[in-house]
């Protein structure tokens, strides 16, 4: 896969167009606002904006989505530090030390260090993306039906492994997702199934209505369970938010380690920012000479958590762009955004649309710079968004969801699909059945089916799965992740029995 400097320069020139910069700034600000408001997050923000980008050229639309993703992932720490409520689950680990810092009157230092950590985490993962994505894509060009089938199998079994003590719950939601993707025209034959005689069903259930339903509508159902209460007030005012030189230089290795952990976790299917931040936090604590300070206001904890959760952005994009496998729900929605613009994620994207890829790379770098600038200049103003009452914000957001979904195909049926998935998401979340595996199932189901059936049609057996070294490697990894899941479960069984008496 050769690199053409003229395409890189054209992509850079495109990203630097005044309108594109305006969209990047607006995207980052919008993402930050959504990230700051507890309960909303980058997945909802990106999903809401996909219909808006439909009328834009792919490069501009995807730049906007990347900017929203970076902003949405970055904003969650503000409320974690100030009011002990993480804006997004990815900032869960940040409150462990960020809030105690605020209680000690160091809210400014916590926020300043978190901003720099978000920036460095995104940059580390962006460098990894630029370096490794083309290599992985070149490698993936050797993939045939058997290799793709094995990769998809591995991604699905990884779900069972990471859902820990309740692996079968994750497995069930993944299967429900794959079944939902079966509705409508089949990827191989182009004939309808599970349409039950309704012509609307022939078009399928749609990735975007399903995702907006699962993450936005279910959240709004959850939020409407109680009438509005008062918004918690910050425990202390923000002093200077510029981090000290000592904090930054003293944490150089912490940035690097957490950034690499975040990138690696981002590559793993269905994990995302929350686990990455917790793993990086635990590693920072283990590596610290004063681990007893963690949990009581150690700035290293804030830095580790925020560097790692933003680093999942680049990691998630590596596997999403090269193989079409989403690292987290937001990457899944981004893949939907790519497809809506007629682009097919995978190695062919690197050959056929390199200008779009370079645009994504540049957008990621520029968005992280813009995010840092915007936060340093206006975090005091942005934080006021948490005081917007839910009874103003949520009706407007749901109207955006409804019309956004309708605008994709001008079908009222899609709005119904969105609400149906909203109900499903609400019920499953209440029962503690994880939703990310379902997203993975919806995205990977058609890919897995198409490649599996084509492999069977071409070879007439399952043997290619063990004859090809690449496919065999992924099959072995799949078995290993299942064994790991079983071991995890066995370990947790005594705990379950104990709790249930």
């Amino acid at each position: 896969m050769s690199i053409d400097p003229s395409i890189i320069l054209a992509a850079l020139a495109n990203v630097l167009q005044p309108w594109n910069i305006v969209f990047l700034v607006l995207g980052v600000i919008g993402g930050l606002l959504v990230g700051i408001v507890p309960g909303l997050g980058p997945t909802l923000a990106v999903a809401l904006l996909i219909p808006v980008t439909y009328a834009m050229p792919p490069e501009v639309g995807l730049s906007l989505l990347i900017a929203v993703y970076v902003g949405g992932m970055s904003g969650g720490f503000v409320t974690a530090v100030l009011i002990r409520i993480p804006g997004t689950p990815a900032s869960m680990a940040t409150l462990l030390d960020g809030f105690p810092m605020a209680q000690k009157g160091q809210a400014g230092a916590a926020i300043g260090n978190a901003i720099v950590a978000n920036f460095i985490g995104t940059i580390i993962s962006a460098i990894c993306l630029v370096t490794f994505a083309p290599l992985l894509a070149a490698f993936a060009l050797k993939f045939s039906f058997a290799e793709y089938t094995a990769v998809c199998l591995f991604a699905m079994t990884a779900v069972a492994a990471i859902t820990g003590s309740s692996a079968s719950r994750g497995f069930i939601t993944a299967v429900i997702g794959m079944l939902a993707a079966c509705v409508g025209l089949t990827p191989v034959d182009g004939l309808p199934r599970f349409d039950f005689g309704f012509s609307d069903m022939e078009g399928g259930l749609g990735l975007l209505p399903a995702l907006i339903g699962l993450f936005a509508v279910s959240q709004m159902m959850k939020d409407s369970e109680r009438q509005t209460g008062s918004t918690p007030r910050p425990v202390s005012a923000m002093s200077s938010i510029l981090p000290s030189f000592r904090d930054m230089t003293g944490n150089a290795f912490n940035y690097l380690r957490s950034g690499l952990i975040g990138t690696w976790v981002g590559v793993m299917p269905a994990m995302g920012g929350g686990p990455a931040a917790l793993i990086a936090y635990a590693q920072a604590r283990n590596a610290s000479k004063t681990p007893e300070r963690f949990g009581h206001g150690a700035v290293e904890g804030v830095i580790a958590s925020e560097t790692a959760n933003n680093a999942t952005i680049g990691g998630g994009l590596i596997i999403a762009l090269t193989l079409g496998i989403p690292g987290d729900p937001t990457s899944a929605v981004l893949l939907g955004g790519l497809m809506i613009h007629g682009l097919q994620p995978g190695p062919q994207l690197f050959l056929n649309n390199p200008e779009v890829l370079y645009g994504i790379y540049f957008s990621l770098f520029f968005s992280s710079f813009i995010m840092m600038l915007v936060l340093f200049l206006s975090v005091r103003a942005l934080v006021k968004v948490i005081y917007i009452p839910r009874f103003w914000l949520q009706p407007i957001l749901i109207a955006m969801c409804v019309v956004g979904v309708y605008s994709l195909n001008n079908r009222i049926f899609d709005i119904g699909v969105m609400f149906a998935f909203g109900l499903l998401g609400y019920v499953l979340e209440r029962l503690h059945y994880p939703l990310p595996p379902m997203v993975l199932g919806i995205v990977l189901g058609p890919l897995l089916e198409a490649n599996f059936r084509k492999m069977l049609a071409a070879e007439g057996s399952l043997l290619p799965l063990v004859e090809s070294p690449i496919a065999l490697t992924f099959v072995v990894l799949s078995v290993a992740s299942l064994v790991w899941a079983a071991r995890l479960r066995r370990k947790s069984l005594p705990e379950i029995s104990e709790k249930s008496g």
Partner: protein
Amino acid sequence: MRDGSSFPFDRWLGVVLLVIGAGLFYDTFFFRTFDWDPVGMAFWPRVLLATMGVVAIWHIVKGRVGAEVAERFTPRAFVVFGGGVAYVFLLDTLGFFILTPVALFGYSLWLRPVSMRAIVSGGFVAVFGTGLVYAIFEYGMDVILPRGILG
């Protein structure tokens, strides 16, 4: 649906999935088949449904498969869902410009105790929200929203 009951929620869900899965499995026998296709388009859904059936039976047998305790469902949330379903069924008839302000007004009131202030702010949300969405989608993106009885 309580976790400590003799019929835990994992078992309930297992039964529900088994029943739905059986119905869908039956439906796969009506899919079209071709001589040249070695497995057919029913193959993949059957694999998935069989897998789901096995896991569902395991859930029924085990009763409880995870450490987490189910959270209570709240009727208020289902009312929001019901409102959404009503919106879907009425949208074609009443149209966006009549139905959306009503829905936004109702949803805004549903989120806070009813008072004169809530009614006024609900009216503001209804008008502002509808106008904002109209401006973005119909002006900005040329999406024709359903007109309903307004023609």
